[in-house]
């Protein structure tokens, strides 16, 4: 595998009047991890699709080792040694790892049959070389997302990729899987493979990149070394100074608004998602629930909204029992809810922005009189909210599904905090959002707290918990393993997140005790 230097010069790509890529120059040295940093819509993916042969540039050239190459299709790019791992994997779920890897380049034995053994050995060999720990005979649909991603990487490597493009590779990974991915990327790099790492997450880029190129509105705005601070990188990305951690004054907590006692949630299969959870959230404070994704946080939120039956325990809001209330009764009782999966649970994608702005109040005055919808009021409401929350949309009649993630989240936020509410439950409120939107959402959440609303934040991003929470609760396997003030060191939170008991986590770490 000869090491290859990749150079893009003056790449311009237009879509009608839009300039998606404006004279972009990029050089990737052999064995370099080159991060492309930019907000959603900055032109990162367009550039990579040009490089991968999915799009033809209007101007500019691609050079490999100084020679101009033209890619008319991904096949040309693959033959030239470029591999790409898309954000959404392209794997056949019911095939094995080996079958997926060999799909399209099947080796046949002299008898004309598929040479399964060779493929399996190839997978094993690559897996060993890069520490991928892949079982060639495992069925892909049974593998966790992080492992599926490795299958994609092996697919590229088997096809002799010398430049590997990873498109937002960590978007779907847990923190631990991200760690593993970084280890693999380092090994690839040591083996001479260049990696183009597309991301909008500053910490990751700092951790993994040798060189950072920042894109904004289709143009390169500058390059940075990984030693650049987060604030510097964020400012380059957004084009203005961004508050990565919103400033907030001390909390002035009032009476308990939400009270949860002994909450136990099980599903139809008898699996226990929440086990004897008790806590309260007071007016004017933010309780942050930390924990690795999948430890019952989603189910906790759903149970608190009446979307999941509660097996045991009590939930009350301002003294009113809501344990077995319907979702609508929860909403009417004064809970604003930002669900974890905004497209699945928060919005009707084909509905207009205006309709989504009233999705849970459409039958209330002034939006409806009796059975009649007051379309004029709904429209006026949308116009006001769009202005107030700076939602970037063509019009109030645009289907919400065509908006960017940040703007979709603003629609939900505008709708939920626009209702009378005493409690705000926000689950992963900034997942998948870019820096600018995160700042906006955080500011709004803190503003709610300062108005005296009780706020419950669930996040698997510790940065977010630290940035917002006045008190932290940690969840592990459906239990709350401990409550901590936001001044708690991250190591102690980490122990609680891994299942340590309150006392174990609080005990000072003694050297080499592990």
């Amino acid at each position, binding site marked *: 595998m000869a090491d290859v230097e990749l150079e893009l010069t003056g790449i311009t*790509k237009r*879509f*009608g*009047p*839009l300039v*998606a*890529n404006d004279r972009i120059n990029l050089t990737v040295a052999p064995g370099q991890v080159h991060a492309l940093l930019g907000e*959603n*819509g900055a*032109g*990162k*993916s*367009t550039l990579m*699709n040009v490089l991968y042969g*999915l*799009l033809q540039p209007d101007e500019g050239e691609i050079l490999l080792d100084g020679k101009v190459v033209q890619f008319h299709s991904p096949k040309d790019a693959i033959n030239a040694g470029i591999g790409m791992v*898309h*954000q*959404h*994997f*392209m794997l056949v779920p019911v095939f094995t790892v080996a079958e997926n890897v060999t799909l399209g380049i099947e080796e046949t034995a002299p008898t004309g049959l598929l040479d399964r053994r060779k493929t399996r050995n190839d997978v094993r060999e690559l897996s060993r070389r890069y520490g991928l720990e892949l079982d060639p005979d495992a069925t892909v649909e049974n593998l966790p997302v992080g492992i599926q991603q490795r299958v994609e990487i092996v697919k590229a490597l088997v096809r002799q990729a010398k430049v590997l493009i990873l498109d937002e590779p960590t978007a779907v990974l847990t923190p631990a899987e991200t760690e593993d991915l970084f280890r693999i990327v380092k090994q690839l790099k040591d083996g001479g493979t260049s990696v183009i790492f597309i991301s909008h997450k500053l910490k990751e880029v700092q951790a993994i990149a040798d060189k950072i190129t920042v894109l904004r*509105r*289709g143009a390169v705005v500058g390059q940075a070394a990984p030693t650049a601070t987060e604030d510097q990188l964020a400012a380059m990305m957004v084009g203005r100074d961004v508050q990565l951690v919103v400033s907030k004054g001390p909390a002035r907590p009032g009476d308990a608004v939400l009270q949860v006692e002994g909450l136990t949630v099980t599903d139809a299969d008898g699996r226990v998602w929440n086990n004897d959870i008790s806590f309260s959230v007071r007016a004017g404070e933010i309780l942050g629930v930390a924990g690795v994704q999948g430890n019952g946080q989603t189910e906790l939120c759903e149970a608190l*909204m009446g979307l999941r039956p509660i097996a045991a325990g009590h939930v009350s809001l301002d003294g009113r029992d809501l344990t077995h209330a*319907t*979702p*609508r009764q929860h*909403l009417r009782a004064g809970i604003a809810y930002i*669900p974890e999966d905004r497209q*699945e*649970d*928060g*919005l*009707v*994608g*084909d*509905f207009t922005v205006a309709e989504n702005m009233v*999705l*849970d109040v*459409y*039958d209330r005055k002034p939006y*409806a009189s009796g*059975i*009649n*919808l007051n*379309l004029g009021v709904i429209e006026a409401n949308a116009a006001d909210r769009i202005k107030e929350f*700076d939602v*970037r*949309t*063509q019009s109030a009649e*645009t289907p919400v599904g*065509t*908006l*960017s993630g*940040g*703007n979709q989240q*603003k629609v939900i936020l505008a709708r939920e905090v626009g209702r009378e509410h005493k409690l705000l439950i926000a689950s992963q409120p900034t997942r998948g959002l*870019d820096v*600018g939107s995160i700042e*906006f959402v955080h500011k709004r959440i803190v503003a709610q707290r300062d108005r005296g609303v009780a706020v419950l934040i669930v996040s698997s991003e510790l940065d977010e918990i630290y940035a917002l929470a006045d008190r932290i609760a940690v969840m592990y396997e459906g239990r709350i393993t401990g409550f901590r003030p936001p001044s708690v060191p991250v190591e102690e939170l980490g122990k609680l997140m891994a299942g340590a008991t309150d006392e174990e986590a609080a005990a000072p770490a003694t050297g080499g005790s592990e």
Partner: protein
Amino acid sequence: MSEQAATGPVAGTGAAATDGEQHPRGRGRIILDSIVEGNSVTVTILAIITAMVIGGLLNAFTNKPVIDAWGKFFADPWHAINMAWDVAIGAYVGLFQGAIFNPHTVAALFQQSSISTAIHNGYLGAVFGPLSETCVQATPLLLVGLAVALPYQAGLFNIGGQSQFIGGAIVATYLGFGVSMPPVVHAIVCVLGGFAGGAVIGWAVGYLKAKTGAHEVIVTIMLNYVMQYFLAYLLSFQYLLQAAGVNPITPAVSGSARLPHLFGPSLRVNPGFLIALACAFGVWWLLTRTTTGFEFRAIGKNPNASRVAGVNVERNWALVMLLAGGLAGLAAATVIQGTDFQLNPQSYGTYGIDAITVALLGRGRPVGVVLAALLFGALHAGAPNMQIATGTPVQIVQILQALIVMFVAAPPLVRAMYRLRAAKAAGVGQVLSKGWNA
């Protein structure tokens, strides 16, 4: 601003994969959606034209004189082409004259000495006869078409127009001959009874889905069998619904229960047609102007988000199926009370299936359903005249109907034939609104 545009060509990867994951809908549902929503009006009209061209060719080249003429094509090519043209056009002219109006009847009208004699002798009726028949034929198609289109908006596929029609027919007919009431009241009671009879069958489907998760497609298809044979059963015994005699047919509904002819005895058009139009308006109003319709559309597009927003998804399933069943039952009432007066084991005809094609052609929207029902109603109304005038078999109408729906169901085919650009290709506007970020 560009990332969304950029993923466009990667349809197989980003865009498609995301869609597949994000929507809790089956593949069949996605295909249906693309049929109903992926079409522009242009495509629909071109589909109709294409179907008529093919129907015309089919008609011409199954005609004995035309085949003979083409056998001697090289001797006299013009004759062959003219023959084919004449036969194809002749059939459509016959269809048109049977469905819309016939110039000869207009000419005859003007030869009369005065308007009053013209009316008295039925000449005026002859002019409007075809239109009247079209309306009569369109009425049940329109109502059952709405019974498919309305649940479609709520995400349910109602194949059960037939069973709901039968449910309505049984109740309306029984009330029609078994009860005596004053004229207008009797007719209204029967119409309402028809609604109720269909609604019960429809509601059962929605209720089963809400309570047990039984898929509405399976349940409606099976109920079609149940109701079909239940009807045959009822008509086999005189202590049930059979009229005196040996035939499996009910007694005729009394005069007080019949829907009067709107424009004199020679035109069959009756208030049933007005009921159907009112229902189309009602469905439109319900869907776009009411909280109930908002809920229907929301659960049709995203049941999960609707549930989170406090909508009772299950109750809406039952409600929308109840209304749909009611609409199909109304169709039965208009047929029994307006034209047939008796119920026989075949009274449900092919309304259930025809209604699905009407709803598809009408793109699931009330206005579209009205237009599609009028088109198919015209085809049905004109067919007998076409056969009488030109000897073209009436089956050509069924073929036309099927071809139209087939082309509507395959928009890429029509677009390719007429070199249209795909309607859903990412327009610049869409790209613009996607790209912005705070």
